[in-house]
């Protein structure tokens, strides 16, 4: 069947380099002496550990429970003993550690009872919960919990389910080999997804440099005989395997940044995710293994079926790391992250382990000035103006960078790939994005601090008003002579005014008292603002200070005396100003 294809602007055509790792079939990697299974391997909440050091675990046993719905479970890939639940080095450029369950396999590989899930009988909600608890997340690299993506959009149904087998990044072949070896189960998983999403059609997109995979899937589709399934071969152009780019190519729809594709009637999953869904439902197997391409500067490039948690160094040992390797990369050469060490484990996001050598990926030439040639804009699949983003990021003009849609950048690396000035453009965008996030965090913190402060002030005001109102109400019932005392306990003219809306006589007295205090304060302030005093003046000032002190003592006494009958002054409220002798109220 011929299908009209669309295209996205930009993109690049680097050498695919996929031949070396597809010569041999997928090999099952033996278990390492120790498995390091990070609890947090997906977008969303960090799972709660369900095991502790010393526990025995079985293959398929849940060792981390999803923390809320935006999370996913993690499982033991074999039986053995938990030796630690502690922070371990993560396969992330930051080199940071995170909580991981460390398991020593016992070699018996005892399984928990596998219970196929009768998804036909279950409600969609139950199916999603099951997938969450089976740890199924997007295996294309984004590791977004799959169950969250398996409900229909606003319209209640989905037009198109896109299954992503494009695998556009050079060197990576794990999806290619998986499509060749498990085409039927991939499509069965896609059919489950189709049912959950109430999708009308399923389009499997494969780049035209993977004819074997496309043929295998076409044969499997013919076997299943589902007319909704369509295997579509798309032109090879990086990043055709980006979810948004593939959706564009297959359906013509452009899903903007920050919006759900389901609202546009489309949803997209990786081929390996479709298989993981099928395994979780039909076989009761949680996600504990994945296919990892090992390529680059290794003796035996190949795809391995790896237990999640296997240390990266162990994987490379089996592929034979060449001695001139200068760097290890997780992912492909366009978007991969440099690995901080070989102790870091394979995680659900690990599609490729790439060994780099100076010959394979030469260090970039020195950065030259941007000549605004616009090559980057022509290569950008998001239709951005990368050089403008670069200028604004470089000059720390982050507001302008956002106006030029910095956050629509998918960091695919096409701009830096084509830049004749060898500018590490993506690094500038990463920097600008993290700066903006940091500023937003700071701003949020400042905002909440200000809100707290304003609330505290408001509360103090309210307490003062309430107190003044109570006092005024009481004083209205007492003889007028008492009003002076009331004035003394009121803390500001505004309070005094606001406090007694109904009572005229005490209010007048309050106002007078307050005005007198204000005058006195003004005088006191003026007297203090004196520099370079003559001895005479100094003597006067000292005398005044002494008077003030006496007056303050007096006030303190008075307050102590009245404390019993007046409400407690809020500790936050400004203290009553010390009255000068001759204060009208006294």
């Amino acid at each position, binding site marked *: 069947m011929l299908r009209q294809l669309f295209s*996205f*602007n930009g993109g*690049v055509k*680097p050498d695919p380099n996929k031949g070396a790792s597809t010569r041999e079939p997928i090999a099952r990697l033996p278990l390492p002496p120790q498995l390091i299974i990070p609890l947090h391997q997906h977008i969303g909440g960090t799972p709660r550990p369900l095991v502790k050091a010393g526990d025995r675990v079985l293959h398929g046993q849940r060792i981390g429970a999803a923390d809320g719905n935006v999370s996913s479970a993690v499982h033991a890939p074999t039986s053995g003993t938990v030796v630690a639940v502690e922070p371990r080095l993560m396969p992330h*450029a930051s080199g940071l550690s995170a909580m991981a369950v460390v398991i020593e396999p016992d070699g018996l590989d005892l399984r928990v009872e596998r219970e196929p899930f009768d998804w036909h009988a279950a409600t969609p909600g139950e199916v999603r919960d099951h997938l969450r608890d089976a740890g199924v997340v997007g295996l294309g690299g984004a590791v977004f919990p799959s169950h969250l993506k398996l409900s229909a959009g606003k319209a209640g149904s989905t037009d198109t389910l896109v299954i992503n087998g494009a695998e556009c990044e*050079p060197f990576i072949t794990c999806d290619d080999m998986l499509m060749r070896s498990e085409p039927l189960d991939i499509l069965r998983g896609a059919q489950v997804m189709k049912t959950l999403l109430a999708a009308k059609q399923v389009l499997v997109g494969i780049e035209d440099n993977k004819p074997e995979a496309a043929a295998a899937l076409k044969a499997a589709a013919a076997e299943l005989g589902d007319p909704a399934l369509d295997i579509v071969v798309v032109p090879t152009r990086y990043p055709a395997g980006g979810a*948004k780019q593939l959706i*564009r190519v297959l359906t013509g*729809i*452009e*899903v*903007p*940044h920050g*919006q759900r594709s389901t*609202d*546009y*009637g489309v949803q997209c999953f990786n081929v390996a995710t479709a298989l993981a869904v099928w395994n979780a439902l039909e076989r009761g197997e949680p996600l504990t293994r994945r296919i990892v391409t090992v390529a680059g500067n290794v003796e035996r490039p190949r795809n391995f079926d790896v237990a999640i948690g296997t240390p990266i160094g162990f994987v490379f040992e089996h592929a034979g790391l060449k001695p001139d390797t200068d760097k290890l*990369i997780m*992912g492909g*050469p*366009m*978007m*991969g*992250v*440099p690995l901080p060490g070989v102790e870091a484990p394979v995680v659900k996001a690990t599609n490729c382990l790439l060994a*780099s050598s100076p010959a394979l*990926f030469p*260090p970039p*030439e*020195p950065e*030259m*000035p941007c*000549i*605004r*040639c*616009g*090559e980057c*804009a022509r290569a950008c*699949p*998001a*239709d*951005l*103006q990368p*050089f*403008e983003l670069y200028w604004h990021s470089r000059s720390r003009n982050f507001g302008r960078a956002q106006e*030029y*849609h910095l956050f*629509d950048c998918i960091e695919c*690396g096409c701009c*830096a*790939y*084509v*830049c*004749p*000035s*060898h500018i*590490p453009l*993506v*690094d500038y965008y*990463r920097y600008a994005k993290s700066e903006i996030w940091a500023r937003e965090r700071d701003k949020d913190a400042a905002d909440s601090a200000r809100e707290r402060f304003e609330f505290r002030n408001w509360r103090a005001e309210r307490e003062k008003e309430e107190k003044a109102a109570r006092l005024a109400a009481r004083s209205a019932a007492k003889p007028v002579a008492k009003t002076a005392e009331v004035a003394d306990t009121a803390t500001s003219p505004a309070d005094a005014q606001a406090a007694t809306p109904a009572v005229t006589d005490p209010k007048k007295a309050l106002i007078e008292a307050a005005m007198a205090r204000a005058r006195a304060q003004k005088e006191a302030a003026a007297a203090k603002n004196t520099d370079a005093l003559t001895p005479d003046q100094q003597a006067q000032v000292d005398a005044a200070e002494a008077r003030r002190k006496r007056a303050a003592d007096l006030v303190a006494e008075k307050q102590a005396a009245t404390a019993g009958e007046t409400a407690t002054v809020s500790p936050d409220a400004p203290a009553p100003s010390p009255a000068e002798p001759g204060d009208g109220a006294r």
Partner: protein
Amino acid sequence: MYNSPYLRQNTSVRRVMGTVMVAMLPAITVQVWLFGPALIAQLAIASLTALACEAVMLGLRGRPVAPALTDLSALVTAWLIAVCLPPLLPWWATVLGTSFALIIGKHLYGGLGQNPFNPAMLAYALLIVSFPALMSQWPGLQSADAATQFGWVFGGERVVDGMTGATPLDALRTGLLTGGDVGAVMQSPAFGHVAGAGWEWVALAWAAGGLLLLALRIITWHIPVAFIGAMALVSAIGWLIDPTQFASPAFHLLAGGTLMGAFFIATDPVSGATTPRGKLVFAAGIALIAWLIRAFGAYPDGIAFAVLLMNICVPLIDMKTQPPVFGHKKGDAP
């Protein structure tokens, strides 16, 4: 430590600039063939001056000299200046123009990539404003032997009448000012089939080089197409209104700096517009202003001034012509 992407296309500023220089060779060859070898001397003078200015300015600015000196950008500027100038211009004028372009036009603005004005057009504008007489003395076709030509450039005695003639644009302008009409003026020997004698071939050689740049993806189609299209359009309007006072579109396209400007000057990425629509506006603006200067202005050719004027508008043009981003195009809403 560096981050992804680890793969990079085999490209560099040097490669881009080198390609531009190669693409200039057809026009340089034709110009030398028609007007004599003095142009080679001008190219050498401009190149040496540019490299010297670049090195001194980089040194003064405390920047690494070697990488910038070898990126060929100064040589491209120098060559573009040299081919614009009358080949018999005295050496000191070429030195003055080139150093002005490099020092004031490029480095005082921050060096490569930072200059708002096209440096070659700055040099041309400076020289034509300062030395209008010298700048109008173009050698006639095969007018002198190499020794005489080099003698002129390096300070030999200048015998104006015998050897130089006005450019076609200059001749046309003078002819029209002295009361002739286009048809009569163009009977003079300075003119060829449609434009200046010989000049037509120079223009076509520029177009050939430009097509090479297009084929190698150094430039996009937007600027040449908009430039040539707009020049054809405005000159056709003038010509249709009064063919005795306004030259034909064919003349305007093949005379002066039209084709060189369309493919090599307006396409300077640093000082030009960068968005696809912005490039169209930018190039059409240059063509319009250039034609207005040719038809009504005080100078025979207006490409240089038109380019400089439109350079000023580039930030605005770019800002107002940002292309829609993926997913934000019209009709994309769900």
